[in-house]
């Protein structure tokens, strides 16, 4: 959702010096849409009011790079610019990464990135390099293993993706993607699309892991020696299990203090029992701890340096050493135990045999380490990040090993959950090396046009089909307004225009307007939406989504023209709102092929309330034209019903 406070900070890309009419819907639409991204953009416009009024040489109202070419070819022009961007980027001639600046400090509402768990923790799929080692599961043996990324397939995908989402599972995959499911004790792969057909699907997270170390033998950890420091005791080796337990305490509760008086290691703990536990552990290790009010402390330069190097200093830099993670389960359990005792909490679930563990950390590296640890222990987990302070919260489940997704009930349940803020869901796919297709973050190019319904349709269609990464905005004023209000295929039935005027033998345009949004949706591009400036939050949100997707996106925005529609200029927003409330201009979006309403009036007002406000429909209220009003209402009702059907048909019962 857009936040007006945040939006006010976004610099104006279309400056107020433009010469569009006051009360023009187009400029409002453009400014709202340009708030959809903070990344650098390149704008293009077709010949029309917008271009004419904003760029009279030698002035320009555009604070961003802008190109106008001709009347009907803005999509092709922008597709050229977008391709040039890719070409020059590939050659290193453009170093500025327009794409990534977009999501820099924004904390933007929508992030669709799938991150892949690799050797180095979670990494955005886009950034994964060939040869990078990715955690994967061998479907034959169910063993967790690092596999080299042979090839990162990256191609624009247009159309529907399958989203699986619950507390423990979150994935976004293409319909032909193979999903591993746990069926009668073994792995089976089914197509993503088939998930929809099933009532429920079980997903296992119980992987096998055989790490280093023989747990029956006594293994020691060697601590490197340092030059003699004061009179401190020197250590050479420790019992591994105990040492790991200690590391767990240090990682979660430990602090290092260096002062003139020496090198202090402090394990914070106010719980008496735990304090005692730590004290005993340290004693066992041969250290010389002393209990303080809220901690257990001991002095040692040698261990201070060891811990600083191996486990990090400061709560944001804590980590589990690599060698620890490579150990086998028996050892991992030791460190896991004290980690959870330190920064975890265990809740037994009511009326269930299961219990749930939460682990909290501010260190990204530790979060990644923890996930690896949890997976190796055969548990599953989910990660979330608190927005205010960036603290990661890892939920660890023990008995949810066969987690079920209910296709009918949950898959497309709550639409708002489809894009979670600060999403860090766990992507689970043992076939990382193959066809892992995900929607990733996205882009920064926009074009604005009014000539989309008729003469520009082909150019636009071509650019959509080619999959250029751009946002196409149709500022829809429902006629050729710039040249003096001539009829277009966007003009609604009954409207009087200069080339289809109302007269004694005519009630204006007799034909229905074209459903451009549906035509564009038929291109199966990732994002298509219809918006209105009156619902600014809805429109900005749609714009954010449009900018965020990889591939083409389309926004059809009702942009009122008081000259052509004939109403007082101050009523633009009011009438825009009526268009939505009457169902004349439904606020819909088609996301990966799934249609839904983003706003549904509680009760649709009769369309005459909208028609009455404008001079272009004035004649309809005369004697003898009542049937046209009825016809228009019927058309609107039919359109609404059709939309509802589409929503039902595409959303899997949502």
């Amino acid at each position, binding site marked *: 959702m857009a936040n007006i406070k945040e939006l006010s900070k976004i610099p104006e890309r279309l400056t107020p010096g433009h010469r569009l009419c006051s009360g023009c819907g187009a400029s409002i639409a453009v400014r709202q849409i340009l708030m959809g991204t903070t990344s650098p953009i390149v704008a293009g416009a077709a010949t029309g009011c917008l271009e004419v009024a904003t760029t009279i*040489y030698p*002035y320009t109202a555009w604070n961003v790079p*802008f190109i106008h070419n001709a009347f009907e070819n803005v999509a*092709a022009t922008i597709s050229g610019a977008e391709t*040039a961007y890719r*070409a020059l980027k590939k050659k290193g001639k453009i170093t500025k990464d*327009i794409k990534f600046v977009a999501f820099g400090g924004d904390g933007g509402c929508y992030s669709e990135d799938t991150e892949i768990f690799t050797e180095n923790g979670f990494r955005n799929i886009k950034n994964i390099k060939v040869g990078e080692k990715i955690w994967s599961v061998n479907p034959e043996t169910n063993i967790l293993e690092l596999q080299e990324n042979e090839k990162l397939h990256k191609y624009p995908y247009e159309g529907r993706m399958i989203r699986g989402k619950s507390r423990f599972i979150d994935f976004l995959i293409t319909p032909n993607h193979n999903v591993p499911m746990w069926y009668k004790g073994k792995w089976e792969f089914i197509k993503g699309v088939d998930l929809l057909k099933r009532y429920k699907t079980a997903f296992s997270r119980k992987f096998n892991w055989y790490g280093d170390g023989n747990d029956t033998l006594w293994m020691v950890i060697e601590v490197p020696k340092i030059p003699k420091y004061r009179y401190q005791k020197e250590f050479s080796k420790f019992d591994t299990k105990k040492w790991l337990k200690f590391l767990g305490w240090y990682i979660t509760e430990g602090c290092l203090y260096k002062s003139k008086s020496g090198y202090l290691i402090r394990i914070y703990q106010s719980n008496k029992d735990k304090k005692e536990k730590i004290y005993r552990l340290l004693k066992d290790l041969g250290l010389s701890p002393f209990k303080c009010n809220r901690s257990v402390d001991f002095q040692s330069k040698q261990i201070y340096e060891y811990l600083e190097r191996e486990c990090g200093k400061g709560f944001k830099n804590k980590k589990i050493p690599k060698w620890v993670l490579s150990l086998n389960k028996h050892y991992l359990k030791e460190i896991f135990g004290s980690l959870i005792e330190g920064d975890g909490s265990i809740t037994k679930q009511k009326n269930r045999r299961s219990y749930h563990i939460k682990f909290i950390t501010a260190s990204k590296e530790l979060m990644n380490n923890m996930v690896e640890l949890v997976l190796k222990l055969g548990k599953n987990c989910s990660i979330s990040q608190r927005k205010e302070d960036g603290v990661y919260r890892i939920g660890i489940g023990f008995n949810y090993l066969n987690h079920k997704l209910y296709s009918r009930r949950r898959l497309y349940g709550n639409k708002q959950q489809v894009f979670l803020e600060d999403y860090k869901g766990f992507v689970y796919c043992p076939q990382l090396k193959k066809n892992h297709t995900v929607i990733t973050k996205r882009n920064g190019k926009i074009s604005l046009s009014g000539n989309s319904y008729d003469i520009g349709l082909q150019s636009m269609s071509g650019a959509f089909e080619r999959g250029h990464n751009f946002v196409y905005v149709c500022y829809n004023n429902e006629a050729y307004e710039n040249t003096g209000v001539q009829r277009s295929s966007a003009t609604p039935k009954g409207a009087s225009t200069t080339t289809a005027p109302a007269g004694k033998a005519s009630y204006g345009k007799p034909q229905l307007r074209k459903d451009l949004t549906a035509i564009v949706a038929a291109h199966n591009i990732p994002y298509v939406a219809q918006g209105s400036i009156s619902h600014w939050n809805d429109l900005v949100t749609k714009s954010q989504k449009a900018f965020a997707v990889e591939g083409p996106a389309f926004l059809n925005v009702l942009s009122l023209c008081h000259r052509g529609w004939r109403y007082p200029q101050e009523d633009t927003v009011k009438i825009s709102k009526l268009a939505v409330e009457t169902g004349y201009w439904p606020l819909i979006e088609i996301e990966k092929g799934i249609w839904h309403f983003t706003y549904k009036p509680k009760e649709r007002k009769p369309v005459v309330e909208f028609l009455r406000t404008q001079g272009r429909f004035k004649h309809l209220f005369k004697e003898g034209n009542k049937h046209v009003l009825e016809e228009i209402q019927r058309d609107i009702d039919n359109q609404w019903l059709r939309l509802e059907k589409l929503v039902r048909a595409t959303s899997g019962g949502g």
Partner: protein
Amino acid sequence: MKLTALTGDQAAAEAMRQIEPDVVAAYPITPQTEIVMNFSQFAADGRVKTEMIPVESEHSAMSACVGSAASGARTMTATSANGLALMWEIVYITASLRLPIVMPVVNRALSGPINIHCDHSDTMGARDSGWIQLYSENAEEVYENIIVAVKIAEHKKILLPVMVCQDGFITSHAVEGISTFPDDKVKKFIGEYTLEHSLLDVENPVTYGPLDLQDFYFEHKRQEAEAMKDALKTIPAVLAEFNKTFNKSHDLVEEYKLSDAEVAIVVLSSTAGTAKGVVDELRKKGVKAGLLKPRFFRPFPKERIIKALSNLKAVAVLDRSDSFSGEGGPLFSEVKAALYESQKRPPVIDYIFGLGGRDIFPEDIKKVYKELEEIKKTGRIKALVNYLGVRN
């Protein structure tokens, strides 16, 4: 140098491969198709790093080229006849935006009636669009002209788009042995392309294609005219550099046995090759025949044409397109106008020939020389505009 058997289309694609533009947006049309096909294969095989835009029409091809070139990418496309006609609107815009796009054009008769074979009606129609036009006699010239065209188009003093024309089927589909240059030498010759004000420079945003009304449009068009005029002065230097680098002898016009000639033909593209053969034959018979082949039609090398033709006794212009002015073809009009400035003003007649791919034979050209000999003797012009090789 390497001798390779290539068609004109393949030669164009080979030049494009060596140029390796950043972006190619093209739509296939006969007889240009092989250029796009061959180049697409180079891209598919990874032999070029070019980004292809497989547009849905020529209109979008040129539109995408405008967007790309304005973004600072070296951009090329190719077309023929009706394809050129469809991109017409943007052809003018490209020139007015001063975007150095190079476009091989395979000349084909412009419909209607529909015909896929060679004449110059397509590019001759675009002679006032603000593009530089180069006409190539054979595949080797196609190859060389495309390379030199890049350098000309991107020259800081020129910055105009260039059409490199070749005769459809006659040149485009006939295999010739041509000498190609080494890749690195071509790349070094054309250099890197940099655009002063790129659309992608998000830190210094520029507006391309603003509304330009009464108070500035005229100045901008004047600048465009001046650019074309200046190009005539700059091009010889670029050609000299090309000649020096590749050991060639390109010039604005090619004079063939003209120094002591009394009668001569002016003709573009492949027909010049046929005519050269006729000149040789006539020379053996003692006829002082010569030939002038303008390589550049835009900018129009007027001074060179005056110098080359002034001392002749009679001149015939061979036009492979008609302007339907009732006064002959476009090449004739311009050559005749140029000679008006000459003190001697030799008699000039026009022959329109080869429309829709109608073959022209040495016998036809001999007829022209015969007529010129006649004029030389009598000083009387029977018909100013003639049609060659057509049924009456």
